[in-house]
């Protein structure tokens, strides 16, 4: 029997569902055993990957963010996945959304990862703060937020109604800050990196504008100060926030609490409204990748591909974690189309805004560093938005050389 060493960074609802999937796989495949390790998300995970690959101690298969693909390629930690490999997994490139295949390939078109899902941030709502206002329609669905003014009006209203942090997101965290910033930037029609240039032209103004909005939310006491990830979630679940901007992966948390009746309010999740003029939402993809230099036997490689293929085909269970499957047969299935609340925000797939394709972007990249080291301090008042935008530009530009 083959033992497949598996690394992931999946915690929270993701982690629970992935563990369940692995268990199911192991049950169904007596000849293959997945032995999984879960490492801390973000920098620690990618540091470990890098070090382990360097010393030939990497796993057989691992989860990887497609946003990080260029960086991963530059670090040379990813093996290519050939057509034969895909065939072994009973997959082909055509089974996936073209965008995700492009994101998983290098310049020459060689595939380095198998996309698994698309995930983005969404807007969670605590309806109790909006009751009787114009922001809830007859069915109790969120409505009437078509621009920034509307949203801020809703925030002010929630504040009035006693919400201590009307819109919570992880303001003290690289991921949380970055995702909101990037969403706002994209909604302004901005670009982070164009042709190897960081914030060229008026993109700088747009970045400053995005930071300015976040700063205002801070100054008005609408968003929590320096919230760590867990705290930002807890603010929402404990009923202190009217809105919560976070990844779809927290959907199961809400669902679970609702079933257990510990949530204490009516909740909903919608696509991030168009606040700045363009509809856009930050998105990323999880994918499976094989570390470089493992020199695994053909049998082992086949087992690994079997794992990947199986996971893709069973990604409906993964969609349970709020994600949109990257594997078209599942994504287009009726079962998925009926899944709630995914259906509510599945439209975002069209407006998903991925990280720029650059070796300084993606999870645990200099861009994320900039979020925690520049944007987060800026919105907490340590520098003004314009300054922050300039600093982002100079800092990242220097990394690009």
């Amino acid at each position, binding site marked *: 029997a083959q033992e497949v*060493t598996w690394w992931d960074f999946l*915690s*929270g*609802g*993701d*982690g*629970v569902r992935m563990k369940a999937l692995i268990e199911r796989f192991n049950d169904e495949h007596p000849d293959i055993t997945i*032995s*999984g*390790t*879960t*490492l*801390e998300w973000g920098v*620690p995970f990618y540091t*470990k990957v890098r*070090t*382990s690959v360097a*010393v030939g*101690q*990497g*796993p057989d298969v691992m989860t990887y963010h497609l946003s990080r693909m260029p960086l991963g390629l530059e670090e040379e930690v990813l093996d290519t996945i050939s057509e034969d490999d895909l065939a072994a997994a009973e997959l082909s490139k055509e089974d996936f959304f073209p965008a995700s295949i492009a994101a998983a390939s290098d310049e020459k078109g060689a595939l380095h990862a198998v996309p698994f899902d698309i995930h983005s941030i969404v807007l969670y709502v605590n309806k109790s703060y909006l009751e009787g206002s114009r922001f809830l329609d007859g069915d109790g669905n969120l409505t009437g937020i078509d621009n920034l003014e509307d949203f801020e009006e809703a925030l002010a209203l929630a504040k009035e109604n006693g919400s201590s942090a009307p819109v919570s997101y992880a303001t003290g965290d690289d991921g949380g800050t970055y995702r909101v910033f990037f969403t706002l930037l994209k909604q302004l029609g901005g670009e982070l990196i164009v042709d190897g240039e960081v914030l060229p032209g008026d993109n700088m103004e747009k970045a400053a504008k995005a930071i300015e909005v976040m700063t205002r939310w801070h100054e008005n006491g609408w968003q929590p100060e320096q919230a760590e990830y*867990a705290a930002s*979630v*807890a603010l929402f*679940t*404990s009923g202190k926030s009217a809105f919560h901007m976070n990844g779809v992966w*927290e959907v*199961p*948390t809400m669902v679970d*609490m609702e079933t257990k009746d*510990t949530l204490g309010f009516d909740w909903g999740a919608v696509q991030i409204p168009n606040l700045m003029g363009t509809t856009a939402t930050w998105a990323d993809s999880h994918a499976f990748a094989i570390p470089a230099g493992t020199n695994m036997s053909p049998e082992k490689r086949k087992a690994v591909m079997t794992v990947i293929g199986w996971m893709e085909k069973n990604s409906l269970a993964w969609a349970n974690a709020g994600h949109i499957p990257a594997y078209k047969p599942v994504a287009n299935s009726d079962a998925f189309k009926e899944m709630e609340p995914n259906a509510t925000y599945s439209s975002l797939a069209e407006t998903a805004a991925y990280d720029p394709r650059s070796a300084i972007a993606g999870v645990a990249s200099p861009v994320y560093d900039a979020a925690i080291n520049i944007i987060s301090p800026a919105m907490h008042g340590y520098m003004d938005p314009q300054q922050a935008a300039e600093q982002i530009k100079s800092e990242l530009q220097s990394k690009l050389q």
Partner: protein
Amino acid sequence: MTRTRKLENWILTGGSLLAAAIWTFPLYWAFITSIRTEDRVVSDGAGVVPDEFNLSSYVEALFNTKLLTWYWNSIATSVIITLVVLISGMMCAYAISQMRFPGRRLLYGIVLASFMVPSQALVVTQFILMNDMGLINTWAGIILPQLIVPVVIIVYKQFFDAVPKEMREAVVLDGGGDYTLLFKIYLPLNWGITTALAIITFIMSWNQFFWPFLVVTTENMMTIPVGITQVNDAFGVYYARLMSVALLGAMPVAIAYLIFQKKVTEAVMISSGVKG
């Protein structure tokens, strides 16, 4: 005793108890947090008085993480480190203290100097070395760089030096050699210091974070201090679970400490040379 002195004593006693209570409050708070449900932890009015006794987060921690594996790794590596450090340190200290051989002074000089050398500064090349030897993700890799504990040699030497010369001569007259002397006389004579050094070495290696964190990449090889930071296997709000993992991680040594408190106290004093 005069009345003011009595009063003073009361204030002193009360004051130091209060200070000690404040000092240990974080541990208390961690415990209170860990026996609450996650919802309770972040709800308003979750005060310092325990109001729930819910062990679910402990159950989670024990069975949804690899805590038991980490315990095993920690115990095994710490025990091996302790044994090897003590035995090699004892032998080396004996030779330095009791025998005459070329290079003796130099060797002791090196031992004294390495007391000041920051081994943390060597992690990069130690890591490379472990990789060259194929010891990444192995117990041996965790253990090897922790085997240099010069203070063990220094303390042993001091104690061996203090064994009267006659003890050695008596054995020589009886026809015993150096191994007899070391293992039949010097070692049993210094059981006290041996246990003291063992305790200190064990605590030190049990609590080691930086090196195991570098040299281990797989969950199955992690030690307790590394494991509990690398994995936050919980979702949404996980403070109670975090605290129970932390407390479980600290538990074995903490319990051992509370049982052998006197011994540990003495061990620290002896091994730092303040008390002989």
